[in-house]
């Protein structure tokens, strides 16, 4: 199996996985969603809330805010040295103290560490004149399988497209017009594929062709993953962690046998 990274900038990544089978690709996808650890707010201690939202609603919204995570610096709460008491190696405590009239955003949460901040720009609640909000939020490591707030990204994969144009092609251009992604073109009286990786395997081109000259297939041994991180971890690191988690599970299995 080989892995190649197409685009690895920050929160978006396109990764090619070769010489693999669909079960493995799916396992990776599922691992990204449910097994990659992330920081998210788990407990909210509310001292003052005169906002228009109930405490529980506020807490729910805070839980969903993605928090930049450094996996090397945190343990899970139940496996931490402090025994779950809430020390700095398992818990990140963010504070919020605001008074209206203003909109309280995710970046108004104060973190003890400038590298472990919540992703900015997410509105939490609108405070009117005189309305106050004072709270502490404890962020903890968790996995998507326990609660969606810990899901680091959205993922999808597709087979690597294989488009073959044979000699029956008359260069009529029907397929070129039919393609919703505009990846076909006519060059020297033949239809040519301009950007194979953008193909979505919709087969509109094959349907449009009256000569059966174009054939669209997906290669079930090569996969293009598209990962969009929520900001908690860089997209490429998410993929790496997912691989590691699968590896850990496989090793656990071997040790049990």
């Amino acid at each position, binding site marked *: 199996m080989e892995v190649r990274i197409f685009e690895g900038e920050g929160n978006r990544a396109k990764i090619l996985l070769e010489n693999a089978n669909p079960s493995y690709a799916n396992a990776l996808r599922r691992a990204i969603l449910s097994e990659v650890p992330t920081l998210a707010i788990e407990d909210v201690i509310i001292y003052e809330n005169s906002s228009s939202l109930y405490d529980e609603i506020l807490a729910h919204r*805070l839980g969903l805010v993605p928090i930049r995570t450094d996996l090397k610096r945190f343990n899970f709460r139940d496996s931490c040295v402090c025994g779950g008491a809430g020390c700095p190696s398992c818990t990140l405590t963010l504070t919020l103290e605001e008074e209206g009239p203003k909109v309280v955003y995710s970046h108004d949460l104060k973190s003890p560490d400038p590298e472990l901040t919540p992703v900015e720009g997410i509105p939490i609640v609108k405070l009117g004149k005189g309305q106050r909000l004072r709270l502490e939020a404890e962020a903890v490591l968790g996995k998507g399988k326990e609660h969606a707030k810990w899901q680091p990204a959205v993922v999808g994969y597709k087979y690597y497209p294989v488009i073959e144009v044979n000699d029956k092609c008359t260069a009529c251009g029907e397929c070129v017009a039919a393609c919703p992604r505009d990846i076909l073109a006519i060059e020297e009286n033949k239809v040519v594929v301009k950007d194979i990786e953008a193909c979505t395997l919709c087969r509109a081109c094959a349907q449009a062709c009256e000569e059966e000259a174009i054939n669209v297939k997906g290669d079930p041994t090569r996969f293009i993953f598209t990962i969009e991180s929520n900001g908690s971890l860089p997209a490429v690191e998410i993929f790496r962690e997912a691989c590691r988690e699968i590896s850990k599970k496989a090793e656990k299995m071997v040790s049990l046998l």
Partner: protein
Amino acid sequence: MYRCGSCQREVELAKDEPVRCPFCGYKILFKVRSSVVKRVKAR
């Protein structure tokens, strides 16, 4: 521990006492939020 609807003053009312502000006589009082610190699960 109630707040008067017009003069905003904090008023303490005993059980079975008439519902009116002892300072300004206004008859609508709001209950103030308890000072107990609340711990909520963010789920």
